């Protein structure tokens, strides 16, 4: 009776296929969650517009890579550059004025930004859905009876490379150090001559660039590009929470975990179970570990 709504299978090759698809989807969630956590950790803003940022990335990818038909690498470069500029705009135009305001006032501002982005996309791109991107190699190969799409492998590799680059930036560069210092204690950082304003601007720019990358990649695996893909922000949210909202590494693992669980739920139970299962994972983790798997309360000074 229980199985009436699903189509469970123990076939290992099918499960392997779910796992690989899950890793690719999870990698996208991870990169989205990473941008989300970066902003939260360093500016204390819970950015509800992050899904819209990603959608913006996907639509800009349509413009630069499909309509303008730029060379792939040049197009990606322009896409990320434009996203960076938008990130700076978000900071200098809006968020900068909100520094020091109440937490929820700022959350509502991000909700407002999300609404504006949705409206602008409707105005400039119209309501018609577009075909998904097909710029990355579209073939597939067989391994152990499972069909593996090239695009899934590429997505996973690109995200892995970007994440490594991202962590190296934080660990080894001066700006990365200053960003971590501001996240730890903004007043002490300012007292050392670090400009929090600049660091915040860089944070929004970095989050926007990551969302651009996420949009470009997600544009290759989504059914179609329309204004419903901002829902990925909603899906990356459990990923960020599972990892612990303050842990960059946790958001990566959280993204992969949520992606894999979703693919298995999708495959075994049907599409409509994807979101409920993903959010159930979030609830269970929060019940057991309120700070997420890797989140920590900041170390208090002695």
């Amino acid at each position, binding site marked *: 009776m229980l199985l009436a709504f699903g189509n469970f299978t123990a076939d290992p090759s099918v499960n392997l296929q779910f796992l690989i698809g899950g890793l690719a989807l999870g990698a996208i969630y991870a990169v989205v969650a990473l941008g989300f956590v970066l902003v939260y950790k360093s500016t204390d803003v819970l950015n509800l517009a992050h899904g819209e940022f990603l959608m913006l990335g996907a639509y800009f990818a349509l413009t630069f890579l499909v309509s303008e038909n730029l060379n792939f690498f040049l197009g990606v470069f322009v896409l990320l550059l434009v996203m960076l500029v938008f990130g700076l705009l978000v900071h200098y135009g809006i968020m900068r004025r909100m520094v*020091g305001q109440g937490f929820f006032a700022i959350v509502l501002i991000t909700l407002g930004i999300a609404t504006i982005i949705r409206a602008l996309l409707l105005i400039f791109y119209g309501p018609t859905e577009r075909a998904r991107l097909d710029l990355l190699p579209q073939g597939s190969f067989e391994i152990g009876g499972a069909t593996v799409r090239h695009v899934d492998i590429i997505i996973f590799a690109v995200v892995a490379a970007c994440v490594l680059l991202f962590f190296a930036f934080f660990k080894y560069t*001066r700006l990365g*150090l200053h960003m*971590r210092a501001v996240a730890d*204690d903004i007043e002490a950082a*300012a*007292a*050392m*001559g670090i400009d929090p304003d600049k660091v915040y601007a860089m944070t929004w720019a970095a989050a926007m660039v990551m969302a651009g990358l996420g949009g470009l990649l997600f544009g290759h695996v989504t059914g179609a590009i329309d204004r419903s893909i901002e829902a990925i922000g909603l899906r990356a949210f459990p990923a960020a929470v599972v990892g612990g909202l303050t842990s960059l590494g946790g958001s990566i693992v959280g993204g992969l975990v949520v992606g894999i669980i979703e693919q298995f739920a999708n495959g075994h139970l049907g599409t409509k179970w994807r979101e409920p299962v993903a959010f159930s994972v979030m609830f269970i983790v929060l019940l057991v570990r309120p700070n997420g798997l890797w989140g920590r309360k*900041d170390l208090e000074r002695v």
Partner: protein
Amino acid sequence: MSVGGLGLKIEGLTVVYGGVTALDDVHINVPPGGFVSVLGANGAGKTTLVRSITSLLYLHKGRVRRGSIELGGESVVGKKSPEIVAAGVAQVPEGRKLFPNLTVRENLLCGAASRSDLGGIDESLEQNLELFPQLRPLLAQTAGLLSGGEQQMVAVGRALMSQPSLLICDELSLGLAPKIVHRLFELLTEINEARGTSILVIEQNASLALEHAASAYVLELGRVLMEGTAAELRGNPMVQELYLGGGGEAHTSYAAIERPRGGRPAGGGR
């Protein structure tokens, strides 16, 4: 190695947080290469004074309503904190305020944020480790896990990483063992004499501050109550009563002395 000290001249400074006045017509003068102390109990406005000099009031919704703050003859009211640090002002904040999740090494490097001579930073780090050899084995340690004394050494070292010409220490002695506090103050005196760095210490521990500083100001409820050379203030009966106490212990507040003794007039120090 800073070249000489930076003078600080504050006149008629009034600072408000919303409608609350925290400093009222305050004046402080630190001559170039001088060692000056500001004494006062909790709530006297000491930390507000530091925030005003280093332009951090905005983080607490405070602002300078009136008055001037000059560094080396140049007004700094309205300048941003990075500019002020770059001009040569470093601080050891109240409560140390280390970056708890960063390592000791990273904390020290953050102190050099304002420097553009990247090559000289390693040299300064080495100088710091000679000053505080205890920190060398702790370089890779997370700062939040250090003891209070070690944290204060990191905080002082971090401030020195910018090669300041004016060093401001806010409540250096708070919560630390007397032995460590004495060593830190001796170190300040050394830095003051050897490098010519101007020093401004904000302290509740008046006996200690008056032992090392050349001159001092007493802040009470946001106003300058008294000022003079360290010797003058040490000899002042009111300072002895309020800040030096019977056994050399600083009382934590004016009211703590006033009330139990039946509101005895505190004498005319103004």
